[in-house]
């Protein structure tokens, strides 16, 4: 019998019941809740007279709507009345049902996918769900994690289970060594460029290969975060010593007495050598350059040194039409240099790239430089209050402020512009977030996805530039 993949092991470990029709009940160890996709789920519980199955499997924090400007007066300070009601509704629902919540001005508040791992809520071998597609982030720790809809949020609250069907296994192997200035973000954008935005549909993607082993936990989170942009609800990285060490001493991590047993169990969370994958994609680390998206889907990506593609050179009519539509929306010309794209705003943040390592990488580039005159605004939004505190302890806030960037309070911010941070119509933004869809960062806004270092380089030069030129 062939060995098991990491995904197979996680699935088998959580199987409560396998039905004859192929559907199954799987047990959910952890659910993270935020204000946008939970109110209707709590309302559903109330209407049916149900209680949460297991309070201690849940953690909540508001992130999508919260303002990132000064907010010490609390929720009443949220200017937008509709946002304010949504955040207050999360607070009252958590109070009513007894769910632990890091409220807006709690130092532990932040983006759900930053907070979960930071607290040791996410642990290797767990199943983690959240009403947010970027829940794939948590797979970086060898956890089976994926986004769900609000009906499923309610289902997990009420039953601690999900009705699921097993996915297929895909392995994306990145072998070799990444060049200087090439980051985890460039790796995942490159992968999406290769397999396409639906390349992973129906699959759990395990990211493996020698390059993955040298990437930090923050970087692995960035890569798994964007598995969904390749169509895969689940991204995974095998557990190694880097994973295990990450959890030492975190608030919800195993206690000292439990540690050895936990670590021993976690070490099993790797794919067997003879495991069979339905699909294998091989990528050479040396082929990966700093990436920039030029279009309106994450697969519309190219190395910074490339030209914007020409739809006339595309043989597939549907694809050519897609390129034309994207160029028109983005206000770009076919065959123009990516380095000639001028930026109006820069956003460093989001569940993809708002962790301490991301902020350090950006600070290193802007240190001693100034934001270019044509850049109206450059935002740095840490992923959590604890990331913010850490960055301030390292003096990163001062580096950003001296360079002319704005240092903000934690939240999702301009990644999806549900709070006041947004692009104006036609504005180009170098963004470390995960989606360049039409209107994503603001009505008519034009998003270019890049790494934190590349966003920082764009901020100080006013256009895209290969960050390696600034590192010499």
């Amino acid at each position: 019998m062939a060995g098991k993949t990491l995904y197979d092991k996680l699935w088998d470990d959580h199987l409560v019941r396998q039905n004859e029709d192929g559907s199954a009940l799987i047990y959910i160890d952890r659910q993270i809740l935020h204000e946008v996709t939970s109110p209707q789920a709590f309302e559903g519980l109330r209407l049916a007279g149900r209680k949460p199955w297991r309070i201690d499997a849940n953690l909540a924090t508001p992130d999508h709507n919260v303002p990132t400007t000064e907010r010490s007066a609390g929720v009443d300070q949220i200017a937008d009345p509709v946002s304010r009601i949504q955040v207050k509704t999360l607070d009252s629902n958590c109070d009513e049902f007894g769910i632990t919540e890091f409220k807006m001005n709690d130092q532990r508040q932040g983006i759900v996918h930053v907070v979960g791992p930071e607290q040791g809520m996410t642990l290797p071998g767990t199943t983690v769900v959240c009403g947010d597609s970027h829940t794939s982030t948590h797979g970086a720790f060898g956890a089976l994690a994926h986004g769900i809809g609000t009906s499923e949020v309610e289902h997990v609250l009420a039953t601690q289970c999900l009705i699921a069907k097993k996915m297929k296994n895909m392995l994306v192997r990145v072998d070799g060594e990444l060049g200087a200035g090439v980051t985890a973000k460039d790796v995942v954008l490159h992968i999406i460029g290769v397999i396409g935005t639906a390349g992973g549909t129906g699959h759990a993607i395990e990211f493996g290969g020698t390059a993955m082993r040298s990437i930090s936990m923050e970087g692995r989170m960035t890569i798994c975060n964007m598995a969904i942009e390749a169509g895969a609800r689940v991204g995974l990285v095998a557990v190694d010593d880097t994973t295990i060490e990450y959890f030492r001493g975190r608030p919800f991590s195993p206690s000292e007495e439990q540690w050895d047993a936990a670590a021993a169990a976690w070490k099993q969370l790797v794919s067997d050598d003879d495991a069979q994958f339905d699909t294998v994609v091989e990528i050479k680390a040396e082929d990966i350059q700093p990436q920039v998206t030029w279009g309106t889907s994450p697969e519309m990506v190219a190395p910074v040194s490339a030209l914007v593609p020409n739809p006339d050179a595309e043989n597939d009519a549907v694809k050519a039409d897609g390129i034309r539509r994207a160029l028109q929306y983005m206000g770009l010309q076919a065959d123009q240099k990516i380095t000639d794209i001028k930026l109006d705003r820069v956003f460093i943040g989001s569940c993809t790239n708002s962790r301490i390592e991301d902020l350090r990488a950006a600070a290193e580039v802007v240190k001693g430089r100034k934001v270019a005159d044509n850049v109206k605004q450059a935002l740095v939004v840490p992923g959590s209050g604890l990331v913010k505190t850490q960055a301030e302890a390292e003096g990163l806030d001062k580096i950003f402020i001296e360079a002319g960037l704005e240092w903000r309070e934690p939240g999702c911010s301009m990644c999806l512009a549900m709070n006041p941070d947004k692009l104006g119509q036609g504005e180009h933004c170098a963004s470390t977030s995960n989606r360049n869809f039409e209107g994503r960062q603001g009505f008519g806004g034009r998003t270019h996805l890049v790494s934190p270092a590349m966003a920082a380089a764009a901020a100080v030069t006013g256009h895209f530039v290969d960050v390696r030129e600034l590192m010499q």
Partner: protein
Amino acid sequence: MKKFTQHTGIAAPLDRSNVDTDMIIPKQFLKSIKRAGFGPNLFDELRYLDEGQPDQDCAGRPLNPDFVLNQSRYQGTSVLLARENFGCGSSREHAPWALDDFGIRVVIAPSFADIFYNNCFKNGLLPIVLPEAQVDELFKEVEATEGYQLTVDLERQVVVTASGEEFAFEVDGFRKHCLLNGLDDIGLTLQHADEIKAYEARRREAAPWLFDAIK
């Protein structure tokens, strides 16, 4: 949940691939704490020429005449024809809620994104995957004939064209059962409460660090 057995209705062609859930329902409308009322803002950025705001009356907003659902021949559409990877991006269930509230009961495409596909079934909305060639043919037929209607029979798992041609489709047995009978997932799962409790007891034994830690 609303039942789905058989449906006949006007079909409209949305001819672009990778339609994401941000496009189906933009973020500003996700601030609602309700499940209903998203219909007027379905495809807001494609449908209107201005930027929509939550709680705004959409009746006076300038419509984009080029957008398919604004054209008079597609008024009353309940079957949406779409291209590959429909519903990609965010997990927002507001996307199927908006489609449902607008009056869409069926979406037919060559492929769907996983989370969106799953969310549809929780809301009595039927996503149907057909081979690209058949979807192409349906696009041509719909565009050629004003008032073109399609019939979908879930029990028999077929899409029936105006000329009576039938296209078979696959659907997961459990999901079909729930849709046909309008069943509530949670109620069904709770019938297995003893199995869940038994699993949980084993889990607590094997991984005690996962219990009583979050407080």
